[in-house]
């Protein structure tokens, strides 16, 4: 029995295509008033202003005047947070149709006065800085960039302009980094020696063969070290190696002299007298060095044989590389090949070559042409001259000029200029170079390459076909992994996973890494394959190695390499809701947290905005606390029910907790469990719209049934990341446009990216001129 038969039909269509854009005469204007009057205005009126919102005196025909209020209402409706639990609530179909009508009104108002907003001036964040150096100089500066102060996260991402402020400390860091990077990339023969210490993964990993290390070894580590010069380097292997006669707990005597350390250099074994401390001549450039313990007792790489084995004596702890000593030459490194595209044959050639090198580097670093005769080039040449004088040669001059280039605001900041011939308040298209930068920082977290800059120079980048082809090219490029490392890792909590410390003996860094990789690899498939982003919710496969497979109880997977594994139709593991990464990151250190899981699902996957609990409202859900309080709740669930019984809490928790509770079969590390402390797990829950859930499979089905909410939220998060700013009400019509466009193309990640890039928000700005500074 439906009171609104029309609405039901419309909503059916809406679910099929994603988002409704239909004008319903009965819901427009006066019709909106009817729903508002019946279900909303009782609290949201001018007198009560519940949540500081009143619809009473708002214009219900033209929604553009209060777009922020209406967009907030749409969000509450779409995510089921309003009307509140316990208050009269019409059918889902009526609410959807009402939300759709508001969306249509808002989109309509936007179309009449498009507002793409601006992109605030932002500096590069640490990741972008390191990537830019990599692409500019073929030099891996991640270690140096890692010493810059960390970037703040705003609206979920660390590329948000609001979080990217400067401070004297940060500037000092940039200037110091510029000097260090330029010296190392050029190969400064006067540089002093320094130590770099690489630590091996401690714990169980040291008892097993490590992937990529020679057969017949166990534990250890492999590092790619950037050797700055052709020189001698000292290597110190720190290892805990049992003394002769070390007795293992089984009583058997093993390793009379302690295990041998095995060293390889770029894959070839190295014979050294004392493998714990030795010196080698090493050519400049990135080289791979591995150290491990010789394991002559067992077949290496077959972890099965290790099952049940007691801890073996000895483990590699760290590798320290000290140098350079007795440097002979700067050598032939990737960064030197990238920088020194020419060499002056005579002093007459010198300036020509210097200009050639510097104008090429500056054009790429500043992301717009820096030609002969420009003021920018003159600046760099002045630095070349003083460096040449101070250091005595051509290379010293280039090094100085390079350090100057790396602290230039044109490099460190992403400038977008306002044209003089546009009126304040008018919308204009950003120029080709600015568009090239927006693209490259969005998809690569780095500077544009030569092809993008060339298209910008030709004025062709904004041609739709050219732009679309470039997006496809960029997504196919290896640098697009930045979307996984920076977008997905922040959205899907993988960065949180890096720092959690679950109090569980099964957890170690090897498991942490496998968890992270599983989710990264699934997301990578979205970039590489034309696959709907809904695969994140219900992929019928995943990637596992032996460690993670054992964790999931999947038999027959051997070795540390991640490989593809198919899930059966009914598997609770399908999609990221079955990924240990997400499940661990949303747990407390010593128990599951259905609240945290539910809240994350609601906010990050379904797009709800949930207010924080009032002061003093948190409850201690640990077993320890309940026991000492004499509470009867023996499982997290039971304890949670106690706290949800409070009417203060139920408003939000009644909506988000059921989602988290349906995942209770996954423990704090995402392992499957049927009981907790001897009590059977009860994963039954009822969603706010009445849908009954009895476990992860049901939750997945329910999310898929509302897949429009997931796709919209994906689009919203991706666009927030692409723009580097928080989205406002003025952006939501654009987001809906992106979702519609993607829906027509099977909701692929490519389609979402293409639609974002094609949008006004991405290609245009509003000129704000001298308008007062916000905040």
């Amino acid at each position, binding site marked *: 029995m439906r009171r609104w038969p029309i609405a039901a039909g419309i909503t059916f269509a809406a679910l099929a295509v994603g988002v409704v854009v239909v004008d319903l005469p009965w819901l427009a204007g006066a019709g909106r008033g009817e729903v508002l009057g019946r279900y909303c205005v009782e609290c949201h009126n001018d007198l009560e202003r519940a949540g500081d919102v009143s619809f009473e005196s708002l214009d219900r025909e033209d929604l553009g005047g209060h777009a922020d209020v209406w967009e907030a209402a749409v969000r509450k409706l779409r995510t089921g947070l309003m009307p509140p639990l316990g208050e009269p609530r019409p059918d889902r179909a009526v609410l959807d149709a009402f939300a759709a009508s508001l969306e249509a009104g808002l989109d309509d108002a936007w179309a009449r006065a498009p507002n793409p907003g601006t992109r605030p001036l932002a500096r590069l964040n640490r990741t972008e800085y390191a990537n830019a150096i990599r692409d500019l100089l073929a030099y891996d500066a991640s270690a140096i960039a890692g010493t810059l*102060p960390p970037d703040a996260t705003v609206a979920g991402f660390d590329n948000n302009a609001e979080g990217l402020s400067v401070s004297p400390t940060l500037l000092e860091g940039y200037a110091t980094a510029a000097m260090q990077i330029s010296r190392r990339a050029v190969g400064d023969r006067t540089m002093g020696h320094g130590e770099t210490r690489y630590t091996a993964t401690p714990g169980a990993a040291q008892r097993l063969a490590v992937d990529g290390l020679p057969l017949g070894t166990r534990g250890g580590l492999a590092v790619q070290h950037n050797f700055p010069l052709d020189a001698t380097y000292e290597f110190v292997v720190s290892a805990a190696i049992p003394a002769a006669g070390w007795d293992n707990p089984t009583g058997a005597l093993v390793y009379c002299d302690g295990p041998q350390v095995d060293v390889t250099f770029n894959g070839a074994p190295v014979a050294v007298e004392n493998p714990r401390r030795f010196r080698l001549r090493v050519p400049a450039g990135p080289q791979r060095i591995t150290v491990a313990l010789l394991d002559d007792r067992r077949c290496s790489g077959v972890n099965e044989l290790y099952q049940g084995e007691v801890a073996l004596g000895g483990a590699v702890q760290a590798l320290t590389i000290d140098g350079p000593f007795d440097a002979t030459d700067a050598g032939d490194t990737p960064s030197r090949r990238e920088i020194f595209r020419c060499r002056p044959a005579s002093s007459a050639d010198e300036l020509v070559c210097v200009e050639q090198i510097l104008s090429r580097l500056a054009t790429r670093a500043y992301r717009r042409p820096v030609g002969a005769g420009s003021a920018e080039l003159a600046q760099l040449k002045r630095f070349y001259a003083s*460096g040449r004088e101070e250091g005595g040669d051509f290379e010293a001059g280039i090094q*100085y000029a390079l350090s100057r280039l790396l*602290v230039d605001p044109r490099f460190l900041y992403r400038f977008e200029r306002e044209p*003089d011939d546009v009126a304040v308040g008018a919308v204009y298209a950003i120029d080709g170079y600015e568009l090239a930068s927006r693209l490259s920082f969005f998809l690569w977290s780095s500077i544009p390459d030569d092809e993008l800059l060339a298209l910008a120079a030709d004025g062709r980048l904004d041609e739709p076909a050219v732009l679309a082809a470039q997006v496809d090219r960029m997504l196919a490029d290896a640098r697009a992994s930045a979307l996984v490392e920076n977008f997905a890792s922040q959205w899907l909590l993988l960065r949180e996973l890096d720092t959690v410390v679950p109090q569980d003996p099964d957890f170690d860094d090897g498991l942490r890494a496998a968890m992270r990789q599983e989710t990264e690899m699934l997301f990578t498939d979205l970039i590489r394959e034309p696959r709907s982003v809904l695969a994140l919710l219900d992929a019928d496969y995943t990637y596992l190695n032996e460690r993670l497979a054992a964790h999931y109880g999947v038999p027959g997977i051997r070795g540390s390499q991640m490989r593809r594994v198919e899930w059966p139709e009914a598997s609770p593991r399908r999609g990221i809701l079955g990924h240990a990464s997400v499940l661990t990151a949303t747990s407390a250190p010593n128990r599951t947290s259905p609240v945290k899981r539910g809240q994350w699902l609601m906010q990050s996957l379904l797009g709800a905005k949930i207010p*924080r609990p009032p002061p003093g409202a948190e409850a201690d859900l640990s077993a320890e606390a309940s026991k000492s309080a004499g509470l009867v709740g023996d499982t997290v669930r039971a304890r949670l029910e106690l706290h949800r019984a409070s009417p203060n809490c139920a408003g939000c928790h009644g909506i988000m907790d059921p989602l988290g509770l349906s995942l209770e079969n996954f423990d704090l590390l995402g392992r499957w469990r049927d009981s907790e402390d001897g009590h059977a797990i009860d994963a039954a829950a009822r969603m706010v719209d009445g849908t009954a859930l009895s476990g992860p499979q049901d939750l997945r089905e329910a999310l898929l049934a509302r897949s429009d909410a997931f796709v919209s939220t994906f689009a919203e998060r991706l666009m927030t990341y692409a723009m580097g700013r928080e989205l406002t009400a003025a952006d939501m019509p654009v987001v809906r446009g992106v979702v519609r466009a993607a829906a027509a193309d099977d909701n692929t990640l490519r389609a979402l990216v293409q639609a974002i890039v094609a949008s006004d928000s991405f290609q245009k700005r509003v000129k704000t001129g001298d308008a007062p500074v916000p905040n």
Partner: protein
Amino acid sequence: MRYLTKKHLSRRTLLRGAGVALGLPLLESMIPAAMRRAWAAGMPPKRVAFMYLAHGAVMDRWLPSGTSGDLVLGPTMQSLGSWRNRLSIVSGLRLPAAYVGEQTAGANHTRASRCWLTCAPLETGASPTSADQAAAAHIGQDTPLPSLELALESGESIAYRTPTTPLPMETNPRVVFERLFGDGSTPGERAARQRQFASLLDAVAGEVAPLQRSLPAADRARLDRYLTDIRELERRLALAGDSTLAELDVPDKPNGIPADFEEHANLMFDLLAVAWQADLTRVATLLLARELSNRVYPRSGITEGFHNCSHHSGVPANIDRLARLNEYHTRATIASLLQKLASTPDGDGNLLDHVLVVYGSGLSNANQHDHDPLPMIVAGGAGGVRGGRHVAVPEGTPAANLLLGVLQKLDVPVTSFADSTGVVEI
């Protein structure tokens, strides 16, 4: 040459072999002898540190019992026994600013640390806003670093240069080390790099004005901040040029962030002590644990995360557990720092004689997110401050009154600070 450069200590002795854990116990011997003599003759400068610990404390076990008078340490403070006469505990303070704004749990936590030294509601107040920066504006201008911001875990800063400019806090001892001692292995190299550094700043400062054109006002303001910061760095650089920095014999660098909390803390305390001793800075802030941190401290024997632990729900066993954590933090942080300072010679005595350390939290009973009565300690003897006292102020006295008292002891010419209504005499 102003000072003798003497290789007091082998570059290899420090961190080689036993790893970072060794810390820098002998750094004192690397301070040029002449500098110590100079202070021995006169009076060493006054220095100050503000140390923040999240989530308040179990107050009835933390505070001394009774009213003002001789200090009798509470049960969780026993590890401070040896320093009883060098510190005072102030009870009854309140942080009114932390009550202003959204009344939600998260916001309450955030404000507890953000308002602790500003005593002003978020994004309001005068500039500079935090007490450490007010101190730095007066006693920090003659050192290469006006202030040093350190942290044992990343989190929101407690130091605010202006109401909207938090100063980033550094967690990596290696980076702190490089900021203090510079990059380069010989005096000649350090000098050459300092010249390059200075000319870089100078050149970039000149670039900003032309770039301002054709930017919207909001972006111009952002770029202005960049320019201001360059000028500030140039000023500091000039100071560093006058200091003994170039002549310091620099030891090997720490390798990174130790995983162990106590090792990390001690390394930072060592660096702070040497920075004070060499007069590289006089003002420091140190975030020991950030609000909402769920860090687990394995050596405390408690496996629950810190934030969860602070929500004890009034359950006796949970209160005991939090009290144990309070006891651990006291022992591993403030007690350890005081030990370090008292054993570091400075002028006619030791560092503890010439510094003030303010240690506390912006929360009281974190279970309820109360911002009063705050746990607050003042230790050290700068400005003639004497310890061994329990200073019980009337309930609800603004914490700013204590900060004002501290600033005045440091000779900062202020008669009020933020919402102060008077001075707490320490």
